[in-house]
C-alpha cells in the first residue's frame, strides 16, 4: 500500500534541460528584464525624484511579499517584520561599508576618504560601471549574508513561539522588533576614518560600531532601480512557487485548519517555522538592499511603525494573494507621496481601513486568490484545465 506516490514520481520526471530552462533561466531572465526596464526606461522617463520613490516602492513590495508568506499563506500573525528588515539592513550595510572603508574602492580606484568626499561611491549613478563594479557584487553578497542572519534570527524567534497558540507569535514578534530597535540604539559610533578602523581589535566588534541612535550613514548606494526591481521579481517568483507547491499547500492548510492539517500528516510546527524563516530571510535581504539605496539607516527601521505598515499592505491586499499584496504595496507607498499635506491623517485612514476591512471584507481585497482568478473567463478555463492535466 505504501509508496504509491513515490512509485509514480520517477515516471513523471521532466528532462533536466527543460527543468533548468523553466526552473532557473526563465525567472532570472524575466527578473533581469524587469530590472533593466526599470533602470533604463522607467527611471529616466519619470525623473530623479519619482525614481527614488520607485526604489522605496520596490522595497515595500519585497517586504509585503515576504510577510505574506507568514501572515497570508500560513495564517500566523507576525507583527515584528521590520525587526528582520532592520537586522538585514544593518548587517548588509556593515559589510558593505566597512569592506569599502578598509580598502581602495576598485570601482573608482580612489581611497575611500576621497571617494566619500566626492561621492564617487555612488558609482552606479555615473552609469559607467554598469554591472561591472566590484561594489555592486559585494552588495549582493552582503545582502545575502544579511538575509541569512535575519533568517537565523527568525528561527530563534519562531521556534519557541510557533509551537504555541497564534497570539503568542504576535506578541513575541512585536517584542522582537522593539528589542531589536533598543539594541541597535546601543551600538557604538560609526567609524569614518580608515586608520581608526585599521586600529580596531576583535573585542571592539563585540558591540559593533553601527552608529547607535544617530544611525548608520554613508553606505555605498549601489542598490539601483535595476537591482531593487530585479530582486522584487525574484521574490515574487519565489513567493509564487512556494504558493503553488506542496509546501505552499501545507502552509495554506495550516491557515485553514490546523487540526485537520496535522491529521493529514503535515508537521505544522516545522512548516510554520519554515514559512517564518523564509519570510524573515527575504525581509533581511530587502533590508540590506534598502540600506544601499542611499539612506541613513536608523534603529527606528526595526520599530513597530514600519511593521504595521507592512501588515496593512498584506491585510488590505488580501492575505495570501501575491498580486493583491503587490498592488496594495505599490499603491499605498505611492499614495503618501501624492498626499504629502495630509501625512498627519495617513495612519488614521489606514487604521480605519483596517477596522472596516475586517468587518466588510475579512479576507482582504482579493482573499487568497490572485487578481486574474477573478476574471470570469480565466476561472472557468482554469478549473477545466485542472481536470484535464494528467
Amino acid at each position, binding site marked *: 500500500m505504501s509508496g504509491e506516490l513515490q512509485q509514480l514520481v520517477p515516471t513523471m520526471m521532466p528532462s533536466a534541460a527543460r527543468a533548468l530552462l523553466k526552473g532557473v533561466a526563465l525567472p532570472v531572465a524575466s527578473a533581469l528584464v524587469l530590472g533593466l526596464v526599470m533602470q533604463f526606461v522607467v527611471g529616466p522617463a519619470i525623473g530623479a525624484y519619482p525614481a527614488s520613490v520607485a526604489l522605496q516602492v520596490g522595497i515595500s513590495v519585497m517586504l509585503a511579499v515576504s510577510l505574506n508568506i507568514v501572515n497570508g499563506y500560513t495564517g500566523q500573525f507576525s507583527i515584528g517584520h521590520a525587526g528582520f528588515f532592520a537586522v538585514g539592513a544593518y548587517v548588509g550595510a556593515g559589510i558593505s561599508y566597512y569592506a569599502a572603508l578598509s580598502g581602495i574602492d576598485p570601482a573608482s580606484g580612489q581611497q575611500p576618504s576621497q571617494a566619500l568626499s566626492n561621492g564617487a561611491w555612488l558609482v552606479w549613478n555615473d552609469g559607467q560601471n554598469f554591472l561591472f563594479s566590484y561594489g555592486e557584487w559585494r552588495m549582493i553578497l552582503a545582502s545575502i549574508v544579511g538575509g541569512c542572519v535575519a533568517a537565523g534570527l527568525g528561527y530563534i524567534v519562531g521556534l519557541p513561539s510557533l509551537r504555541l497558540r497564534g497570539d503568542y507569535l504576535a506578541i513575541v514578534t512585536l517584542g522582537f522588533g522593539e528589542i531589536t530597535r533598543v539594541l541597535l540604539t546601543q551600538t557604538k559610533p560609526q567609524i569614518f576614518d580608515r586608520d581608526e578602523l585599521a586600529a580596531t581589535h576583535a573585542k571592539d566588534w563585540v558591540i559593533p560600531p553601527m552608529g547607535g541612535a544617530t544611525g548608520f550613514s554613508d553606505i555605498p548606494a549601489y542598490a539601483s532601480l535595476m537591482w531593487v526591481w530585479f530582486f522584487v521579481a525574484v521574490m515574487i517568483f519565489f513567493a509564487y512557487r512556494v504558493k503553488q507547491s506542496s509546501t505552499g499547500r501545507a502552509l495554506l492548510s495550516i491557515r485553514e485548519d490546523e487540526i485537520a492539517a*496535522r491529521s493529514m500528516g503535515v508537521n505544522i510546527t516545522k512548516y510554520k517555522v519554515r514559512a517564518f524563516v523564509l519570510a524573515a530571510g527575504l525581509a533581511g535581504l530587502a533590508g540590506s538592499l534598502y540600506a544601499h539605496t542611499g539612506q541613513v539607516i536608523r534603529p527606528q527601521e526595526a520599530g513597530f511603525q514600519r511593521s504595521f505598515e507592512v501588515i496593512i499592505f498584506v491585510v488590505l491586499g488580501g492575505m495570501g494573494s501575491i498580486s493583491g499584496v503587490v498592488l496594495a504595496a505599490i499603491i499605498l507607498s505611492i499614495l503618501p507621496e501624492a498626499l504629502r499635506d495630509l501625512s498627519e491623517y495617513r495612519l488614521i485612514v489606514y487604521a480605519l481601513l483596517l477596522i472596516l476591512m475586517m468587518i466588510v471584507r475579512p479576507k482582504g481585497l482579493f482573499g487568497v486568490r490572485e487578481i486574474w482568478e477573478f476574471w470570469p473567463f480565466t476561472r472557468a478555463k482554469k478549473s477545466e484545465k485542472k481536470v484535464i492535466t494528467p
Partner: protein
Amino acid sequence: MSDYLLDVRGIGISFGGLKACDGLTVQIPTGGLHGLIGPNGAGKTTAFNLITGVYRTQMGSVTLDGVKVDHLRPHEIAKAGLSRTFQNIRLFSELSVLDNVKLACHCRGRHTLLGTLLRTPRFVAQERAMTARAIEMLDVFSLQHLAGEQAKNLPYGDQRRLEICRALATEPKVLLLDEPAAGMNPSEKKALAQSIKLIREQFKLAVLLIEHDMGLVMDICEKITVLDHGCTIAHGTPSEIQNNPKVQEAYLGEPATA
C-alpha cells in the same frame, strides 16, 4: 507482535475528574470493519482523538501494524498509516477540491525548500505525481468534475465524501471514520455503506467506524464495541450486541441517538 493491524489496548484519558475514555480496547485485523457506537457523550470521538494523537493517552497503548504509535505526534501517526475523518467536517474550505486531496498526498512526499524555489526535476515530477494520484482518488468518489471548485462550495454530501477521499489519499493502513453518515438521507446512507465496503476491498485496509445509525452499523460491521460514559459496556458481533441487555439499557431514554 500482535495479529491485529490496529491493536488498541486499554487507552484512556481524563479531563479534570471526568474519565472521558477509560480503558478502551479495540483490535482490528487487516481488512476488518469495526463499529464504535454509544450514546452522545459516550467518548467515541475522544477515543478517535486518542488513537490519532490529538490527545495524549494517559494509559494503554496503540499499535499499528506492529509499531507502537501512542507517543507519536498526530502528523507522525498519519504518516505511520492512520487516517481519519471528522465528525464536524474539517475540509480546507478555501482550497480547491483537488488541492485538498493533493495536500493529503503530502505525507508521502519529500519536500525541500530549494527544490520548491528552483523547481528541480524531482520537485516537478512529484507535483505531477500528486496531481495524478489526487485525480485518481477523486475519480473513485466521482468527484473529478468538481476538482477546481473551492471545497466550501460543495454540497454537504459531497463534502463528506471528499473528506473520506482526502483521508484515503494519505495511503493509510487503517481508516477512522467519525460519523460519516451524519446528516445524510437514507439513499445517501445506502450509497455510503456501499462505498465503505468498496473502499475496504479496493484499498485493503481496516476501518474503524463511529456511527449513530444502527441500521448502517449493523449492516456493514463485523465487530462492534459499545461505549457509555467512557467505559466499554459490550463487545461482539452485531447480533450479540443487538441482544445485549446492557446495551439496550444504555440506549433507553436516548431518543436523540438515531
